């Protein structure tokens, strides 16, 4: 199949359109603006709805509405804008609506800067808003994966009636790579709710009882019931949806753990070190929630977690390994990106230790 050259941001948008996303609302913020522009250019042509919202808060609540009405819906933003959306994401989780939210992370805290970062890991993988909930979180590490995982995110969101987050960063969003537009027809947007597949959707109550989409349960015991239902769903997702890539684990003395753009640099370090006879491996979490604990089921001696943050995924690696291995950390943030050389230096330091 022929490949085309595309940026990560564009690939996410195209993946969404081919997954049948027929509603997009967003608000400008760097470094994800290409995604919004791609939707502005393509959504209407393919029969869907594009809205430049007045704010991130409005955008996520428009997505709530479109999803409640049965449409595959998406919004995208970058770190500060994603903070604004947290209330809406909590409502989406509570109302058990499917939706896809893209966060092309930038430096923080506060307004931070527009450099790539992975400092929103906690926000994405824990309940970023209020209440006991989780979003499914997928972290692409290439343009191809940006496309593929966005497509998958819509399917998982529908399957589990839960919000799904694509967690990328400015580097991934901006870079261009060849992309294969796999196995999907090019023009699927504009489809409306199919009452058969989404019997809960708001379509007008013709021929059935009235539907209500809500997260409010005032009567004693009712909200606990909803929470128990959500927890059961999260247990199922945790059991079934762990995704990761692994490299050279069989004989590895030191295993690098990195996701997203950071994993590309980690992979380069692994290959260089292997060329020098160092037995180094890589675990690249693809799903961040659920975290791929299964990848750590047979612990190796030493792990080196590398992040564009000061140690957020690190905590999940620690939890997965439960003290059964030595864990080192290398992280930079605020625009700092750990380099291949820094990783190699760190590995050389701990390799024989």
């Amino acid at each position, binding site marked *: 199949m022929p490949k085309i050259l595309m940026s990560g941001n564009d690939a996410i948008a195209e993946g969404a359109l081919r997954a049948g996303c*027929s509603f997009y609302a967003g608000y400008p913020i760097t470094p994800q603006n290409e995604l919004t522009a791609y939707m502005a250019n393509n959504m209407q042509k393919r029969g869907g*709805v594009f*809205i430049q919202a007045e704010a991130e808060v*409005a955008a996520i609540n*428009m997505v709530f*509405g479109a999803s409640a*009405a049965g449409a595959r*819906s998406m919004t995208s933003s970058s770190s500060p804008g994603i903070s604004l959306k947290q209330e809406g994401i909590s409502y989406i989780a509570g109302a058990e609506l499917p939706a896809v939210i893209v966060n092309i992370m930038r430096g923080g805290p506060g307004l931070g800067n527009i450099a790539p970062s992975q400092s929103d890991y906690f926000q994405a993988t824990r309940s970023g808003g209020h209440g006991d909930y989780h979003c499914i979180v997928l972290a692409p590490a290439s343009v191809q994966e940006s496309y593929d995982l966005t497509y998958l995110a819509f399917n998982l969101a529908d399957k589990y009636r839960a919000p799904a987050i694509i967690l990328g960063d400015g580097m991934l969003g901006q870079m261009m790579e060849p992309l294969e537009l796999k196995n999907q027809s090019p023009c699927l947007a504009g489809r409306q709710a199919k009452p058969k597949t989404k019997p809960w959707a708001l*379509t007008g109550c*013709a021929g059935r009882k009235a539907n209500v989409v809500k997260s409010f349960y005032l009567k004693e015991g009712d909200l606990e019931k909803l929470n128990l239902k959500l927890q059961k769903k999260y247990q199922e997702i945790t059991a079934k949806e762990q995704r990761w890539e692994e490299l050279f684990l069989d004989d590895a003395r030191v295993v690098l753990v990195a996701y997203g753009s950071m994993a590309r640099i980690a992979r380069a370090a692994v290959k260089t070190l292997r060329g020098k006879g160092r037995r180094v491996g890589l675990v690249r979490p693809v799903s961040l929630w659920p975290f791929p604990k299964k990848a750590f089921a047979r612990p190796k001696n030493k792990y080196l977690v590398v992040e564009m943050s000061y140690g957020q995924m690190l905590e999940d690696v620690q939890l997965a390994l439960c003290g059964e291995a030595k864990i080192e950390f290398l992280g930079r943030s605020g625009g700092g990106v750990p380099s291949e050389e820094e990783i190699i230096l760190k590995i050389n330091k701990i390799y024989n230790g």
Partner: protein
Amino acid sequence: MDRIYSHPQSLRDVPTHYCPGCGHGLAHRLIAEAVDELGLREQVIAVAPVGCAVIAYDYWDFDCSEAAHGRALAVATGIKRVRPQNIVFTYQGDGDLAAIGTNETIHAANRGENLTVFFINNAVYGMTGGQMAPTTLLNQKTSTTPEGRNAQFQGYPLKISEMLALLPGVKYIERVSLGSAQDITKTKKAIKKAFMNQIEGIGFSLVEMLSPCPTYWGLSPCESLDWIKNIMAKEFPLGVIK
């Protein structure tokens, strides 16, 4: 004998949680009657607010969505844009529509969304215990303006309907009252017109209803009706604004 009146099909036959003399029950019923009379029950999708009417969906017997506080018009925009064949309306209080949700209100209106908005103005936050609303009158006592609203510190009652009327995307705004039998008849007409505008694709229509809140006005239900007529309607004049 001819039956000239019956319980609206769109209104469930259940007791409401509203206080004695509250206007919400009336407003719910008028909307339900209008929906029935226009034959919209199977087409309509309502968006309920956060506030006293948060469980409006327990009273209306048609499709309803919740919305986060202030976000009803963003949610309604999402629904209407993907299902333009449905009739979508929001039902919002003064805090929801004119304080926390001002941004969503102004921009949905400015986009000219083909939506119907029912705006219940009772000049107070009821659900949370009678705090100052954006529409609270000067000198009106609330739990957060114990000495009465003072313009120097709390500004003035917000006339959001007049503000919205400036926008070209807005096609119809009328302020009505639930304060007397005659006013209630006018209110129902306005509700129907606001629905008809959406059916005919005319565009953004809003009906502001001055509505009694005896509990947090510290008045009896009857005194509350007088207060609407003699005091509130002086600040918020009734009639077609646009």
